[in-house]
């Protein structure tokens, strides 16, 4: 009689239990930590993406908030020059403009169940431009004096795809708050993992002694 090389043990175990069986105790905790980190990371993705882009466009100079020409640095790629507001309203396609936000013109609409915001930008040369934003306005918009808007022009309106707020006092604070949140989650995950392994370690030691 020959011994079968492969027995039917996997069939007796449910789901992926046979696969995770060797990952006892601490390794299982590691996987749980990975899942928690993934959730934390996924939550941090929008914040991180928002904080992205060329660093000089998020001004750290709170004193310069009213004059667009003074606060908005030139875009990095040579083809994407800032257009004056008066010229931007005459072109079609992708543009990038900068201007002061006319607070009195900020309004909200519901179009096909979608929230749409609108406001006007003005510059020192007297140019004005209507901007439409789909979805939420960026953090710090309420306090910002100046906006650097990228998007596409259609019928004299700029449909914004990205809004940067140079010198907005809340942007770095929000970023710092987001980072603190992710750091606290990471510390909690690490502390939890440490306590868990520490307890398993002590229990194993007690079993070894007995």
């Amino acid at each position, binding site marked *: 009689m020959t*011994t079968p*090389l*492969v*027995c039917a*043990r*996997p069939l007796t*175990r449910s789901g992926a239990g*046979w*696969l995770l*069986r*060797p*990952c*006892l*105790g*601490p*390794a299982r905790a*590691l*996987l749980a*930590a*990975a*899942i928690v*980190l*993934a959730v934390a*990371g*996924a939550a*941090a*993705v929008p*914040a*991180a*993406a*928002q*904080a*992205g*882009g060329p*660093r000089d466009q998020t001004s750290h100079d709170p004193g310069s908030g009213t004059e667009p020409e003074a606060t908005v640095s030139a875009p990095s790629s040579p083809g994407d020059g800032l257009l004056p507001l008066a010229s931007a309203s005459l072109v079609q396609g992708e543009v990038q403009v900068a201007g002061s936000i006319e607070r009195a013109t900020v309004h909200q609409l519901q179009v096909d169940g979608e929230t749409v915001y609108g406001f006007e930008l003005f510059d020192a040369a007297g140019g004005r431009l209507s901007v439409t934003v789909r979805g939420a306005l960026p953090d710090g918009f309420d306090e910002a004096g100046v906006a650097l808007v990228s998007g596409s022009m259609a019928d004299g309106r700029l449909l914004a795809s990205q809004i940067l707020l140079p010198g907005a006092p809340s942007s770095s604070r929000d*970023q710092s708050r987001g*980072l*603190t949140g*992710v*750091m606290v989650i*990471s*510390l909690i995950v*690490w*502390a939890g*993992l*440490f306590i868990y*392994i*520490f307890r*398993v*370690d*002590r229990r*194993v*030691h007690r*079993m*070894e002694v007995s």
Partner: protein
Amino acid sequence: MSPGTTVLGQAARWLLLVWMCVVIWAAFFVVHPAEGFKGQASRIVFFHVPTAWVATLAFLVSCVASVLYLTRRRKVDDIRASVSAALGLAFAIMATVTGSIFAKIEWNSFWNWDPRETSITILLLMYAAYFALRGSIADPELRGTLSAAYAILAFIAVPFLVFVVPRIYWSLHPDVIGQTRSGGGGFDAAHTLVLLASLAGFTGIFAWIFSVECRLEHLLRRRQEELLR
């Protein structure tokens, strides 16, 4: 005597706790976002690279223990091989998850089938198959022998998949230690210091969990043998 009972062992555990807390704090608040990365994405590197490094180390330990098992036929080597492979798989999953989050921020997609992503998928499947193999054989001797042979063969592919494939093909994946064709090596001395500290901390975590797991598995097997008698 288990390492947990010595004063030095206890001190090492508390040092590891403090060390990793400092590393986490430094990763978020001491270093600024590195050049060449979008937003805060460079901070993930302090956790992604060490998990990938520990996964590779764990697979190496598993291979060495498997070679020792085939030459010495000691049960403890089989335990070390399986525990190390399990930890390697867990850390590789963590590396994949953190890498996916990085990819979402940098390239706006969680998965791009980049050479790195493809090679880690193959690696995960290879070591998942290792546990499928272990789980399918009842006889401990046969299980130890076959899985040891498999672990050695699997590890031959690890350096190829981790180090060679991403360097042969053009990859989006940045190389923070040495510049690759895709760039992204914007790490300065402070970043490198935090990264090395994180590498040391994660290696310490691996060593600790490995030790606990081996002792636990040893106890479980001993109990199982006692029950069978």
